[in-house]
C-alpha cells in the first residue's frame, strides 16, 4: 500500500509538479517514461514519489521516448492504467507509436509540456509538438496554468477510460510558462481524487490469459477504412463524455471547464482565438482594450481534438472580425487554429473577417501590450468591414514588419 501524502488546501506547485501529483493520485499502474526538458520534472517528481513510497505501481525508465510510448502501449494492452510525460523532440520520436496507441483504443494519459521543435534547437514553449500530434487520434486538452494542468490530468483518465470513448488523452501545458511557473494550486485529497478518477475498467486485457486476444493485426484495403472510421467516430462522439466529466469535476471542485472557453465574448464585436497560457495574458489585454472602448472577447478550444468546430462557430456568431493566434511555425501555410476556425465559421454560413497571427515561437515573450496591438488591428478590420490588415502577421518578431497576404 502506498504511503499517504499530506497535502495542504492550497499548494504552490508548478505545472510539472501539479501533473505529477495527478498521476500519483490516479494510482497509475505503469508509468514508462524518458526525461526531456521541460517535462523532465514530471518524471523526476514521480520517481521521488516512488522512492518515498507514495506510489505502488511500476515505473519503467526506458531508453527513449519511442520505447516509452511502446512500453505504455504494451502495458495498457496488458490491462491497467498507464501514463507518461514528454515534450518536443521526445514527442516527435513517439509519433509513430501515438498512432498505434489510439488505433488500439488504449486510454493512455500523457502529460505533455509543450516545447518548440528543432532545428534550430530550442527548449522553450510553443505548440509545435501539440500540432505535430493533432492527427494522431488522441484527445488533446489544453491547460493554461498549474491548477488546470492538475485538474485536466485527473479528468483525462476519466475521459479516456470511459467505455464510450476508450482513447488516449494528452493534457498540454506551455513549457516553462506553466510547467516551471509555481502558482497556487488547490488539490483534491488523495481519496477524493481517486474516487473521481475511479478504478480502471479493463477492456480486452492481454493479461486475462483465459481469454487470449490479438492486438495490432494487419488490416488491408478491405478493412482499414472501416477501422479508422470507427476510431474517428469515437473521437467525434467524445464531446458529450468530456462535458459530462467536466461537469462532474465542477460539482466536486467548483472549477468549471468547457469544450470552448470564452472571455467577455457575449457582447463582443471582435474576437481573438488562442490556446495556452497566452489566453490568460490576453484576458488582461481584453480588459485594457475594453477600457478604450473596443468590444473584444476571447475564445479558446479547451479541447483541441476533437475540435469543437460547431461550438466555436456558435460562440463566434456575432463577431465581425476574428484573429486566430497560432503558437507554432506555420511552415508554408496559415496556422492550424486559423484554418480550423475559418472552416468552422464558413461551414456554418458565417463570414467574420479572419486574420492569422503567429506568436511566441521558441518561448518568445508575448505581453499584454503585444496582444493589445493585435486587438487594435483586428478592430480596424471590423471598422472597415473588410480585411485591411495582412492575412498573416507575426507578434514580437524583431526586424522589419513581416506579413503575408
Amino acid at each position: 500500500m502506498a504511503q499517504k501524502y499530506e497535502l495542504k488546501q492550497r499548494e504552490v506547485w508548478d505545472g510539472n509538479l501539479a501533473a505529477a501529483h495527478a498521476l500519483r493520485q490516479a494510482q497509475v499502474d505503469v508509468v514508462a517514461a524518458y526525461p526531456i526538458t521541460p517535462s523532465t520534472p514530471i518524471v523526476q517528481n514521480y520517481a521521488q514519489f516512488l522512492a518515498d513510497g507514495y506510489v505502488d505501481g511500476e515505473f519503467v525508465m526506458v531508453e527513449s521516448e519511442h520505447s516509452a510510448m511502446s512500453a505504455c502501449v504494451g502495458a495498457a494492452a496488458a490491462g491497467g492504467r498507464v501514463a507518461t510525460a514528454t515534450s518536443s523532440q521526445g514527442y516527435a520520436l513517439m509519433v509513430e507509436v501515438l498512432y498505434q496507441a489510439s488505433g488500439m483504443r488504449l486510454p493512455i494519459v500523457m502529460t505533455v509540456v509543450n516545447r518548440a521543435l528543432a532545428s534550430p534547437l530550442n527548449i522553450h514553449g510553443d505548440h509545435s509538438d501539440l500540432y505535430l500530434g493533432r492527427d494522431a487520434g488522441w484527445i488533446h486538452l489544453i491547460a493554461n496554468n498549474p491548477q488546470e494542468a492538475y485538474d485536466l490530468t485527473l479528468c483525462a483518465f476519466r475521459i479516456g477510460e470511459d467505455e464510450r470513448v476508450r482513447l488516449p488523452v494528452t493534457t498540454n501545458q506551455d513549457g516553462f510558462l506553466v510547467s516551471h511557473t509555481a502558482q497556487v494550486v488547490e488539490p483534491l485529497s488523495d481519496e477524493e481524487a481517486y474516487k473521481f478518477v475511479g478504478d480502471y475498467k479493463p477492456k480486452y486485457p492481454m493479461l486475462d490469459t483465459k481469454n487470449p486476444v490479438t492486438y495490432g493485426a494487419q488490416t488491408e484495403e478491405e478493412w482499414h477504412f472501416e477501422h479508422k472510421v470507427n476510431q474517428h467516430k469515437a473521437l467525434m462522439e467524445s464531446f458529450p463524455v468530456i462535458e459530462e466529466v467536466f461537469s462532474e469535476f465542477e460539482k466536486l471542485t467548483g472549477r468549471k471547464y468547457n469544450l470552448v472557453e470564452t472571455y467577455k465574448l457575449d457582447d463582443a464585436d471582435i474576437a481573438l482565438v488562442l490556446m495556452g497560457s497566452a489566453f490568460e495574458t490576453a484576458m488582461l489585454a481584453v480588459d485594457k482594450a475594453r477600457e478604450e472602448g473596443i468590444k473584444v472577447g476571447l475564445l479558446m478550444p479547451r479541447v483541441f481534438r476533437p475540435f469543437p468546430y460547431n461550438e466555436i462557430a456558435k460562440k463566434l456568431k456575432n463577431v465581425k472580425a476574428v484573429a486566430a493566434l497560432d503558437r507554432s511555425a506555420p511552415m508554408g501555410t496559415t496556422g492550424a487554429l486559423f484554418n480550423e476556425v475559418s472552416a468552422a465559421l464558413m461551414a456554418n454560413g458565417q463570414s467574420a473577417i479572419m486574420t492569422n497571427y503567429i506568436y511566441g515561437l521558441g518561448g518568445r515573450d508575448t505581453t499584454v501590450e503585444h496582444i493589445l496591438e493585435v486587438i487594435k488591428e483586428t478592430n480596424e478590420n471590423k471598422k472597415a468591414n473588410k480585411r485591411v490588415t495582412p492575412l498573416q502577421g507575426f507578434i514580437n518578431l524583431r526586424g522589419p514588419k513581416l506579413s503575408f497576404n
Partner: protein
Amino acid sequence: MATPKEMLTTWDKVQFAAILPAFEDLEHKKRSKFHSYNYSVADWRVEKPVFNRELCIDCDFCWVSCPDSCFMVEEVVNKRGKKQAKIVGINYNLCKGCGVCVDVCPTPIKSLLMFPEYVDTEEALKQWPKKD
C-alpha cells in the same frame, strides 16, 4: 489476400480496435471465428502430402517440423504407461504442401509422400512403393 465473403462486414460491426479474441470457449478449446485455424490455405497447394498410417512409427518428426501445424495427434498411452502422441492425419485446410514432412520422414519406406493435388488419398495409398 481477399477476406472470405462471410467474414466481410460493415464499419459498425467490425471488431473493436481490430482486437481479435482467439477463443470462443478456451476451456473446451473452441476457437473463435477469428482464428486462422478456421481459415483455409488449401488452395496454396500444388502437391499434397499423403499419410500412410501403416508405415508410421510415430516419431513425430513431421509434427515438430510442420510449419503449418497440420499434423493431428491423439494422445495415447504406450506400453510403459507413458503418454505419447499418435499421428492420426493431416489437416488439409492448413497444409500448404511444402513437403518438409516428407523430407524429414525417417521410415525406410516413407510414411509420408507427396502426390499431385488431384490424386485422392485412397488412390495414393494404392500407388505406395512396396517393400522389396
